């Protein structure tokens, strides 16, 4: 019975998203929604082009990945291949501590620490304002580091010792063993970790709501303020939208887009893991 509740939850999510989404698309065409370049649903002259929200989500996720893939992978290699057990026993819980910090706290950190720092250190072009995509993306990357590091480390630890010993016997250095034997052998787990990181970044709300600003903006300049899909949903939810209004329905339309997007990413990751899993005896 209890397990059925999980299926019921999914159904409820789909149903609750579907109804208002359908009535939204009855008023606003699919074509306008996915190709329009201006997102201003709550203005008198309402415009419903979701592209600015999607581009902001993609850009900020990209910045987050640029931070978390190198940092997470290097940390994982260190934990799995280089560190002594005692160092590892101390470092791993430390990383997990980063994962336990609430996202609203990360948002505060992005706004009050990283943004001013970026404004000072900005190298090219106009320095960013208080609200910008770069600080939200960087902090989001830091947030995902534990996910990527911990899951990749698990995958690397699962690579059998015999493979490493074989490579060492052929005269490889530690670096060569790590990068040419262990990482390729653990690739499926690493990819799964990164994909999970992507879906967390896409779905993250509070950091972007606090630090990226609240203006939809079709721009790929990380110094600009912009609004992601999640941030729009939250912002529209805070202002009490009357039930049945177009403003209320946009929440669901954007929510469906987000839900379908993360579902696809997640299904791909489950597939990838199944397909490329190397089974060692």
């Amino acid at each position, binding site marked *: *019975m*209890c*397990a059925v509740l*999980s*299926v019921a*939850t*999914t159904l*409820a*999510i789909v149903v*609750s*998203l579907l109804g*208002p989404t359908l009535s939204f698309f009855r008023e606003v065409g699919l074509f306008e929604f996915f190709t329009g370049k201006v997102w201003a649903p709550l203005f008198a002259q309402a415009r419903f082009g979701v592209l600015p929200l999607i581009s902001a989500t993609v850009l900020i996720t990209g910045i987050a990945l640029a931070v978390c893939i*190198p*940092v*997470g992978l*290097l*940390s994982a290699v*260190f934990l799995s291949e*280089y560190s002594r057990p005692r160092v590892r026993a101390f470092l791993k819980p*430390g*990383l997990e501590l*980063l994962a*336990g*910090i*609430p*996202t*609203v*706290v990360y*948002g*505060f*950190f992005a706004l*009050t*620490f990283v943004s001013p720092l970026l404004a000072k250190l900005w190298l090219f072009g106009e320095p960013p304002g208080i609200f910008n995509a770069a600080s939200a993306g960087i902090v989001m990357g*830091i947030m995902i*580091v534990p996910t990527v590091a911990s899951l990749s480390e698990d995958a690397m630890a699962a690579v059998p010792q015999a493979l490493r010993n074989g490579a060492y016997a052929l005269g490889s*250095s*530690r*670096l060569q063993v*790590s990068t040419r034997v262990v990482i390729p052998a653990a690739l499926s787990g690493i990819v799964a970790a990164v994909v*999970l990181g992507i879906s*967390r970044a*896409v*779905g*993250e*709300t*509070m950091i972007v*709501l*606090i630090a990226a600003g609240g203006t939809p903006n079709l721009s790929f300049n990380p110094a600009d303020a912009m609004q992601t899909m999640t941030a729009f*949903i*939250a912002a529209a*939810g*805070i202002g009490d939208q009357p039930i049945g209004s177009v403003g209320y329905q946009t929440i669901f339309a954007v*929510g469906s887009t*987000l*839900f379908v997007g*993360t*579902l696809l*990413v*997640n*299904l791909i990751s489950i597939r990838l893991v199944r397909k490329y899993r190397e089974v060692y005896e």
Partner: protein
Amino acid sequence: MTPPDASPGDLSSLQRRRSVATTIREAGFKSAMLGSLLLAATALVALMVQVFVTGSPRLNGDLLNRFPSSLPSRAGARSAIFGTIWVIGTVAFTCVPVGLGAAIYLEEYAAKDRWYNRLIEVNIQNLAAVPSIVYGILGLAFLVRGPLKLGQTVLAGALTLSLLVLPIVIIASREAIRAVPGSIRLASLALGATQWQTISRQVLPSAVPGIATGTILALSRAIGEAAPLLLLGALTFITFVPEGLASPFTVLPIQIFNWISRPQDEFRVLAAAAIVVLMVILLAMNGLAIWLRNRFQRKW
């Protein structure tokens, strides 16, 4: 790997050159790894220090005893702290029995090759990856306004968060149950116990530490969650402690967000002080989880 200008006869110099290059690369890689760990550690330390230094002027009894106010100097987080306690208590009461039930079914009763059981499993994996704000939409549509019409109450907020952390509780409980070796079950069944007696008297007691650890971690996730509750309308100005499940409420992360988004700097200070309170609660819970895991962990 061969250096380009090595003459074939000069083997010893080739070896030496190669080992120098390898050493340099090795050192570079090592410092890159240490650098990235250092970056993560620096971020953690910077975050803690920043929050603590900013919030320290307001870390006093007023924060716990006063209610939110439009005047920063008179504001406190009492209603948010009590709201958090109410909501998390309710979440624990609703999601533990359901999560445990689902885990017992999937591990002990379900036949793995039936399509509906596999559907449930894939489904739980997917649910764990659904963005939290989508749960907020669900809560808004189903619990607050739609079929159940609970309004913006403690119960609606708690049920939304329960659904959010349910997959975590299920996955953790399943792992704990799976870690109990099959020989224990077989021994119990061989002594004439029924399947339910085996589960309730042998399997569950051995799995309790793992289940408790997973549940505490899930609850600490729920405590820090703000996005779904924003959608439910918990951002209202609450100047009283919730009296029951049907009472309107606010919680700490929401109160923090509210203070961050005000323009005055004094509210930033308040936000930082409230973050310290939130982090202390979370650290205490995580510490409890780690202690439980180490204290009661059994090796079979």
